[in-house]
């Protein structure tokens, strides 16, 4: 009987899961026009979970037979995930009503997915991590197909599901080999066995398959192929969630696995990830250039950004992981922000997602377009935005570890990326509007999310120290 059943260590996850269950229990007693209240309940639960997480910051302990670890690293990602989920719910409230799919399952699934993501970041055991990952995956399959009478949403869910299940099987097979070689699924045991035995064939197979599984989750090339289609077809708030939450969770778990379980194979995974990073950035950016659907464009952009994040991983030093954490936050802010604008502007049935639908709206909707421009500038990496600082940290880390070639390619890529982000700004401000600029109203919750994301993007660019400090303190738990 394990003696470390510290339920307090997983209190935030208990709160999120319980809130999810509460939403489902209250659903039958809530009139259809009041479903929004359940969304607010979800926000409240996430806030409470965040507070519970804050209460534990600074403590380090393992619990449940050494399966889950409470440390600054997991606290950091918990906050990120809770924030992302709050943002997702805020932008969904109006959207679900508008699209006629206002079911409380949506909020419950977001909360369950958050629970899963939290466990991905906190687990120090392959099997727990796998179950957390599957909880996220299954919730998001459903979310992607949530507009079930919309063929595009169906198709998005189908592709996501089939390929997701496929990659899950690959990941699981990899875990089997790691387990087989070491006789344990715990990260520390795996690391011990690895340093004792050296990288044998089973370790290599296990690592390779693990990289594929995570490669799918965080959309590294060539495992990214699903992203554009799935992001395009899914309901826009779900796309925002997918692009930000599960991707960050994938990175959280990947960093933890590679550094805690397989540190002695760092040359093996470092080499492959270096190649993959180059491929990912390049494919993402080159493919984004000619996109005309803004959701697709942002999908490729998210692929490219996964490549930048990998640069920090490949650097294999402290600044590198801090930078990954930092950039994960900044990336979440700017992408959630950009997608919020997409959600608001797309209109009923998501009819306005073509770039030409943005023509000339710059001065008609200064708030929306101003925010979107800010996020796009941050995605380019213009100074005074978080995106710039994040890239500087990532690239500086890689330079520090003498990956100069990689940095050259990364910088070149971000130069190329300016072109397609800029195109959107040009279209918004410098093109003739369509015959009649449609009128949209900006729902208050979404506006709040937008303002918060914009402030965060600016703040992380102007005063990056606070977040970077937090990130570098969180990293110590992993290294």
């Amino acid at each position: 009987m394990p003696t470390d059943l510290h339920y307090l260590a997983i209190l935030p996850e208990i709160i999120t899961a319980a809130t999810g269950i509460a939403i489902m229990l209250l659903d039958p007693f809530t009139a259809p026009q009041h479903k929004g209240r359940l969304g607010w309940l979800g926000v409240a639960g996430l806030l409470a979970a965040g507070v519970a997480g804050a209460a534990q910051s600074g403590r380090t302990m393992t619990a449940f037979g050494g399966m889950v670890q409470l440390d600054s690293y997991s606290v950091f990602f918990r906050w990120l995930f809770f924030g992302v989920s709050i943002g997702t719910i805020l932008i969904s409230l109006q959207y679900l009503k508008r699209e006629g799919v206002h079911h409380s399952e949506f909020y419950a699934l977001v909360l369950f997915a958050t629970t899963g993501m939290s466990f991905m970041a906190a687990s120090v055991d392959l099997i727990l991590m796998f179950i957390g990952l599957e909880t996220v995956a299954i919730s998001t399959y459903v979310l992607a197909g949530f507009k079930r009478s919309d063929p595009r949403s169906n198709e998005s869910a189908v592709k996501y599901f089939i390929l997701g299940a496929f990659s899950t099987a690959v990941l699981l097979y990899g875990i089997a080999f790691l387990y087989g070689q070491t006789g344990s699924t715990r990260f520390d045991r795996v690391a011990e066995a690895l340093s004792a035995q050296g990288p044998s064939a089973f370790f290599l197979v296990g690592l390779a398959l693990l990289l594929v599984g995570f490669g799918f989750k965080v959309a590294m090339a060539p495992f990214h192929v699903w992203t554009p289609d799935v992001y395009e077809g899914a309901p826009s708030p779900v796309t925002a969630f997918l692009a930000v939450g599960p991707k960050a969770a994938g990175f959280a778990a990947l960093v933890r696995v590679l550094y805690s379980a397989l540190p002695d194979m760092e040359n093996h995974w470092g080499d492959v990830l270096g190649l993959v990073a180059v491929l990912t950035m390049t494919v993402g950016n080159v493919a984004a250039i000619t996109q005309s659907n803004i959701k697709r464009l942002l999908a490729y952009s998210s692929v490219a950004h996964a490549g930048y994040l990998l640069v920090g991983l490949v650097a294999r030093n402290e600044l590198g992981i801090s930078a990954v954490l930092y950039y994960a936050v900044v990336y979440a802010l700017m992408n959630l922000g950009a997608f919020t604008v997409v959600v608001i502007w797309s209109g009923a049935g998501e009819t306005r997602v073509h770039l030409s639908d943005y023509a000339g709206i710059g001065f008609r909707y200064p708030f929306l377009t101003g925010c979107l421009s800010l996020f796009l500038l941050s995605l380019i990496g213009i100074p005074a935005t978080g995106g710039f600082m994040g890239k500087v940290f990532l690239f500086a880390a890689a330079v520090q570890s003498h990956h100069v070639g990689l940095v050259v390619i990364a910088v070149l890529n971000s130069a190329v990326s300016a072109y397609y982000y800029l195109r959107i700004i040009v279209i918004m401000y410098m093109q003739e509007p369509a015959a009649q600029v449609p009128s949209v109203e900006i729902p208050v919750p979404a506006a709040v999310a937008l303002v918060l994301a914009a402030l965060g993007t600016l703040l992380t660019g102007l005063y990056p120290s606070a977040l970077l400090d937090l990130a570098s303190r969180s990293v110590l738990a992993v290294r």
Partner: protein
Amino acid sequence: MVPLNYYLILGALLFSVGALGVILKRNLITMFMSVELMLNSANLTFLAFAREWNQVSGQVLVFFVMVVAAAEAAVGLAIVIATYKNRKTVNADETASLRD
């Protein structure tokens, strides 16, 4: 006692057959069935290793994988049904309107 490698090779073959099914079939349901084959090959590998280590935990892991597989099946088939309602097809190649 059958040597470990036999099981592992069986697992590898089964995994490859499953992967082949996913990239070869056009029917969503049979694609998914091929994924089930892959999951089972992983399970077989788990169990073979567990026997080698003389551990019970490998069996527990297999149990969890079965839970996951059941959950995936429920959701996956629900997605297929939702798609079928709208498109009247379960052919993956006809579910390809999102593309570059």
